[in-house]
């Protein structure tokens, strides 16, 4: 069995004034210490996000040089997909203990405009989309959201619930960038329009920081104090027309449509068995969309599901109890994995889910590639 032995992170904020190498070193060292390990125990490295290289991690964390390594594609699916790649390295015998780390100065140096130039299908962006004024993720996904509103009656009130819920969790999480910045319904609705129907508070933050995770086949050393969380299953998928959206036959069929059933099957779990979910929340509607596809509610029912209070504090499926990309910080979903680990260790503070046994984590990238990881607590 493979599990997560340790997590580490830096402060999340704007304009860190730090180098990526410094952020990498801090988060990596923290994760290795949290795992109860030494740098020499790491024999695999996965740098996430597209801004850092294996060598930055080796140098920063003082790791052995002869490690197995791999780099996932840099989009929003990378964090959960890196768990899949780490499992593959371990199961194939190339590594026993893999350090996954993401670092970025997302609010200052590594902004979204630069990253979209690395996406697949650049010829469609430059030839057909940008000349028509369609150039950013917020504009692409607004198109899917609008279609869902038309087809299923999803409302702005329901989208507001996603953001309000994230902000209310963030008020109880001192690490969150929006801690101390409560959101009201009025503030949500009166915020600037970005790409209709998305307003400011439908959009994720931009963040400087780093998060690292240690994945291993090892059990914690006796007396190390490490609390291992089990990686029960992880799967990834991508949609038809994987490098552009407009000509996908079914706009709701995404990578997660393939990944979620595969993950549930491998873990012998069903959506009803999940106690909380960390859903990749680049924008509010993407949470509704993935809740439907992951089987937490029926197709087209994401709006009523979130409006029922299910995803908020005390709900039947608390979602993004750290505040998510919307209110904790945009660590490309690595912070979702860190929060799932805290929940399963019982270390989530005021946002702790009672008796959390199984947590689902999803990834959503670029044109809809997706992943699901199912994590479970060790019997205590």
């Amino acid at each position, binding site marked *: 069995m493979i599990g997560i032995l340790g997590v580490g992170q830096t402060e999340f904020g704007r304009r860190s004034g730090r180098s990526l190498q410094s952020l990498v070193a801090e988060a990596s060292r923290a994760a290795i210490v949290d795992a109860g390990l030494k740098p020499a125990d790491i024999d695999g490295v996965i740098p996430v996000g597209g801004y850092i290289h294996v060598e930055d991690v080796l140098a920063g964390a003082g790791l052995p040089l002869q490690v197995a390594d791999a780099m996932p594609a840099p989009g929003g699916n990378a964090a959960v997909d890196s768990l899949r790649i780490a499992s593959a390295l371990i199961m194939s015998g190339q590594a026993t203990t893999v350090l996954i780390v993401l670092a970025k100065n997302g609010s200052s140096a590594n902004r979204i405009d630069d990253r979209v130039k690395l996406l697949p299908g650049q*010829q469609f962006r430059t030839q057909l989309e940008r000349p028509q004024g369609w150039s950013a993720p917020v504009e692409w996904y607004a198109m899917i959201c609008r*279609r869902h509103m038309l087809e299923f009656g999803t409302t702005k009130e329901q989208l507001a619930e996603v953001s309000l819920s994230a902000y209310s969790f963030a008020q109880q999480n001192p690490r969150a960038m929006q801690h101390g910045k409560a959101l009201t319904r009025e503030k949500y609705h009166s915020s600037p329009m970005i790409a209709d129907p998305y307003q400011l508070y439908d959009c994720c933050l931009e963040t400087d920081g780093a998060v690292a995770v240690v994945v291993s086949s090892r059990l914690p050393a006796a007396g190390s104090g490490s609390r291992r969380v089990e990686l029960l299953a992880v799967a990834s998928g991508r949609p038809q027309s994987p490098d552009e959206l407009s000509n996908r036959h079914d706009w709701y069929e995404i990578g997660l449509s393939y990944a979620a059933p595969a993950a549930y099957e491998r873990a012998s779990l069903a959506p009803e068995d999940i106690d909380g979910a960390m859903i990749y929340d680049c924008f509010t509607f993407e949470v509704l969309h993935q809740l439907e596809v992951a089987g937490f509610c029926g197709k087209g029912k994401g709006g009523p599901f979130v409006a029922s209070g299910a995803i908020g504090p005390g709900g039947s499926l608390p979602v993004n109890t750290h505040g998510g990309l919307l209110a904790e910080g945009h660590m490309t979903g690595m912070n979702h994995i860190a929060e799932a680990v805290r929940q399963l260790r019982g270390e989530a503070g005021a946002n702790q889910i009672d008796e959390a046994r199984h947590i689902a984590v999803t990834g959503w990238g670029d044109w809809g590639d997706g992943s699901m990881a199912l994590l479970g607590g060790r019997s205590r």
Partner: protein
Amino acid sequence: MKARLGPDTSNPDFSPFWEGCKEQRLLVPSCRHEHLNWPPRPVCQTCFEWNDKWVEIAGRGSLYSWTVVHKTRLQSHLAETPYVVGVVELRGTPPVRMVGRCEIDPAAAMFGLELVVDFHRVSPDLTLPFWRPANPARASAQAPAQAPAQATP
């Protein structure tokens, strides 16, 4: 509409499309089984034969979805915000959906709105397609967004 930073119209996978626009025609790639392909790809996405010709498609379609862009980092489009970008579904086998600027009142955008293509000559090398309401009277009415009829097969 103002001139803007244009695509490289000499890209061989797209140049027949841009040549067609200069003649006010919409051309799309097709394979020997007459499957239409959009956006242009070397290989047919229905049968995986080579797309070896370009065929004309009628410049008429219906609005499949849209967004109104209020903030953009495209210098070329800054002065035009807010503007409507739509996905327009054209009849064909399989149907073709094109992303394009829609010269419609955002309040009148509605699912299934009938649109016709028009062309804007930006430079001698570049003519851009855009979309206008097929029936301007209907498009300016304050029509509520409607539940969609069955649009795709």
